[in-house]
């Protein structure tokens, strides 16, 4: 029994061809494991979320969460959609996410989100500035 199973798992392609010719065993196990792995991550971040949110809720409740500067977020998204060229999309999307999640809260970070567009240098050194005007 064990030997049979063992053969499945240490097996390369040849043994799989014999023991699982239609691929259903591999498929079912694999899908299960993929879901398992990501469900574990889900629980983990759910948990960490609950731990960290406590601290954050307090913080954000002291600020007015109402004034969502949608315009800024929309601008960042527009940029992210537009910027197919040259891979700047990563930076644009990061900016959009940052603005979106952080709206209404002055976080401890510089408060300026920087992306670049025209510059030909690598992303890291690019600099198109979304300024958060002092409110």
């Amino acid at each position, binding site marked *: 029994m064990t030997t049979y199973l063992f053969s499945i*798992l240490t097996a390369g392609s040849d043994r799989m061809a014999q023991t699982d010719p239609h691929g259903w065993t591999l498929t079912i196990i694999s899908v299960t494991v993929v879901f398992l792995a990501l469900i574990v*991550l889900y629980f983990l971040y759910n948990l960490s979320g609950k731990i960290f949110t406590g601290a954050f809720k307090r913080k954000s409740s002291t600020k007015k969460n109402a004034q969502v500067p949608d315009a800024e977020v929309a601008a960042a998204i527009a940029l992210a959609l537009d910027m197919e060229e040259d891979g700047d999309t990563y930076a644009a999307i990061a900016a959009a996410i940052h603005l979106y*999640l952080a709206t209404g809260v002055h976080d401890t970070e510089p408060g300026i989100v920087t992306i670049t567009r025209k510059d030909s240098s*690598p992303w890291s050194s690019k600099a198109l500035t979304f300024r958060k005007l002092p409110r």
Partner: protein
Amino acid sequence: MDTIIDSLQQFWQYTGFANCTWQHLAMIAIGLIFITLGIVKKWEPLLLVPIGFGMIVGNIPLFFDPATGAGLKIGIYEDGSVLNILYHGVRNGWYPPLIFLGIGAMTDFSALISQPRLILIGAAAQLGIFGAYLLALLLGFAPNEAGAIGIIGGADGPTAIFLSSKLAPELMGAIAVSAYSYMALVPVIQKPIMLLLTTKKERLIRMRKPREVSQREKIVFPILGFICTAFIVPSGLPLLGMLFFGNLLKESGVTKRLAATAGGPLIDIVTTLIGLTVGASTQADVFLTGRSVLIFGLGLASFVIATTFGVGFVKFMNLFLSEEKKINPLIGNAGVSAVPDAARVSETVGLEADPSNHLLMHAMAPNVAGVIGSAVAAGILLSFLG
């Protein structure tokens, strides 16, 4: 004088003109199409342009006399040639992990951290991989080949190269080209499926703004994420380890220069070389076969299945969710990875239904989860079929 004219005639034998076949020209034409699509359509240009040029490079007709073995030793499959040396990183599988290092160093996982339930969409979309696996077996491919073909559905170029270089090196060119082609075609493929599977009402679902994510969570994420996924699927270690390592360098706040280099010069160098050599590995005699056509067909199928399961899974989740927690199924397609194009498709299609409903940031969660998911899937396939 006689000698010279005869020698010139002989020289002719060495030229590309003398050795040219229609297959060479066909492959060069495909290369030109790739370059054109990359430049004009701006579809994944960082990949299509190098791969396209590589196809041209790899299909310059070279003289080779099978009888005497005489020939120029410059082809990508000839030991010691320049192309062959640069191809090592593909064949031995260490270019893709370095690309993952750079991707990790550029990717912001906040969207995923703040909405962990969306991770599951990234799991569902991996069904495209296994659907294609089953189909490939049906069509007569060996299991290792079927696994390598299936990974096209992971919609992740480096993962596809990594896995196919381990499982079925002879199919790697076709698989890589297929994977990148469909990644470039994500908007074309996914939109009709998304419209077909969703009702107008579903497309209008507005999702709540997720909570903020602290820097500490962002630091803990790659460490915890790596340990969990690697314990479950140790064979995914090369890809997952590098992805999360790069992300830790980015988020730690004290190793920014390492992250900047990993997501800058390092990923650029590897991207240039992987594209060129993968392209050059598609030499006509290896590439232009009936099997390549099948691989392209299976690749398309895997993208369709993945998108279907991604969108369908959101609808399935919605059955169990209260009204205000419902998820817009238009972000389901993003589970396939193809970062960030698939997420942009979500945004675009969403905007068509409601111009004030931005889905991009929500879609980034299944999108990056899809990267993790397909690296996990690649690990599993490797442990079964490797």
